[in-house]
């Protein structure tokens, strides 16, 4: 029992530097905080770690910076490089982020205006799709065709006009979502919420949760 406790203490002690830097996972942070609260000797050692942390930052900050010539040298080397071909091998979230970043503020403003008009039309369209699904037990939409190769559980999302590309990228990553198709007319995206099919109740629960995020302008279930 004591051996196990010692091993755990040693394991926790090894994590102290990362705890000081704030780079531990939530689970490990909780483990360390609980151990610190109950072990005064560990708490004392943590203070040593915090001293090292502070002085390492100070030491590095005194190292100065490179001269302005560094950038000149770099671009002289870049100029000497052969002309490059366009490369398109980026992951989807980067492409989504790049797409939004490429829009000028004026374009975004016009898009927001157009989206406002489209919202009413699409809300009606999607609502009718949902009603139809309930009454007939199955459907095929124009905006989310059943021929989509993806399998799993899907939703249709239109992002809030004020959401930035970073917000959307973070939202997709935080909720482990994948954009399966889009943008469709009206700025709708077909978004996969699970890799396997889910019961309707479960999808409804996910939709309700995602709806609370400020990034989401509109969301509905999809097949």
């Amino acid at each position, binding site marked *: 029992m004591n051996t196990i406790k010692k091993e755990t203490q040693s394991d926790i002690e090894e994590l102290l530097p990362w705890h000081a830097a704030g780079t531990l996972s939530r689970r490990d942070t909780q483990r360390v905080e609980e151990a610190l609260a109950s072990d005064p000797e560990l708490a004392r050692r943590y203070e040593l770690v915090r001293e090292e942390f502070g002085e390492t930052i100070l030491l590095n900050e005194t190292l100065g910076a490179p001269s302005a010539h560094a950038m000149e040298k770099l671009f002289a080397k870049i100029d000497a490089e052969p002309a490059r071909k366009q*490369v398109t091998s*980026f992951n989807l979230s980067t*492409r989504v982020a790049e797409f939004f970043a490429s829009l000028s503020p004026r374009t975004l403003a016009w898009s927001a205006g157009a989206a406002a008009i489209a919202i009413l039309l699409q809300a009606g369209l999607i609502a009718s799709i949902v009603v139809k699904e309930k009454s007939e037990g199955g459907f095929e939409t124009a905006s989310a065709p059943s021929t989509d190769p993806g399998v799993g559980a899907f939703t249709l999302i239109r992002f809030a006009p004020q959401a930035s590309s970073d917000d959307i990228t973070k939202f997709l990553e935080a909720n482990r979502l994948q954009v399966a198709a889009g943008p469709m007319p009206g700025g709708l995206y077909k978004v996969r919420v699970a890799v396997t099919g889910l019961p309707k109740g479960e999808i409804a629960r996910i939709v309700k949760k995602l709806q609370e995020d400020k990034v989401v302008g509109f969301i509905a279930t999809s097949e």
Partner: protein
Amino acid sequence: MQTTSDEVLIARIAGGDRLAMQVLFARHHVRVYRFVLRLVRNEATAEDLISDVFLDVWRQAGKFEGRSAVSTWMLSIARFKALSALRRKPEQELDEETAEQIEDHADNPEVALAKKDKAAVLRQALSKLSAEHREIVDLVYYHEKSVEEVAGIVGIPEATVKTRMFYARKKLSEILKEQGIDRGWP
């Protein structure tokens, strides 16, 4: 104000966007320089190396897959460049530079102790760690890299990252003890 993410900059750099390269350079070159400088301990060499590091970023941007943060990827490139430069340099030259560097950045231990400046002695001790130990301490404390990220940059298993950091800190305590500061650990 919205800032463009590093990932977006890399995507633009892959397409040959020089302005994106300037932004990325402005955002990261000081930290990359300091990381390299702590390894090679020569300012001129470090400055030469960072242009090489960012040239590699320019060349390799199209291959970046976003599996790690851009800053982590750049530190991996920087580390490789720094170690290659160290391998090319004669041992004696490095030792002389090391001594100069220590003199440059902190008071000597006696002076620092006389000033009762424990923090200065600690910084002095940090400068005296081996390259391997300095590297891991900087990555964890200054560059704020997680266990997983350090493992990726240094190319060692995560368990080894934790034990190497532990032994670096232990060595730090030993150096401090030699300078007259007993931390009561380990």
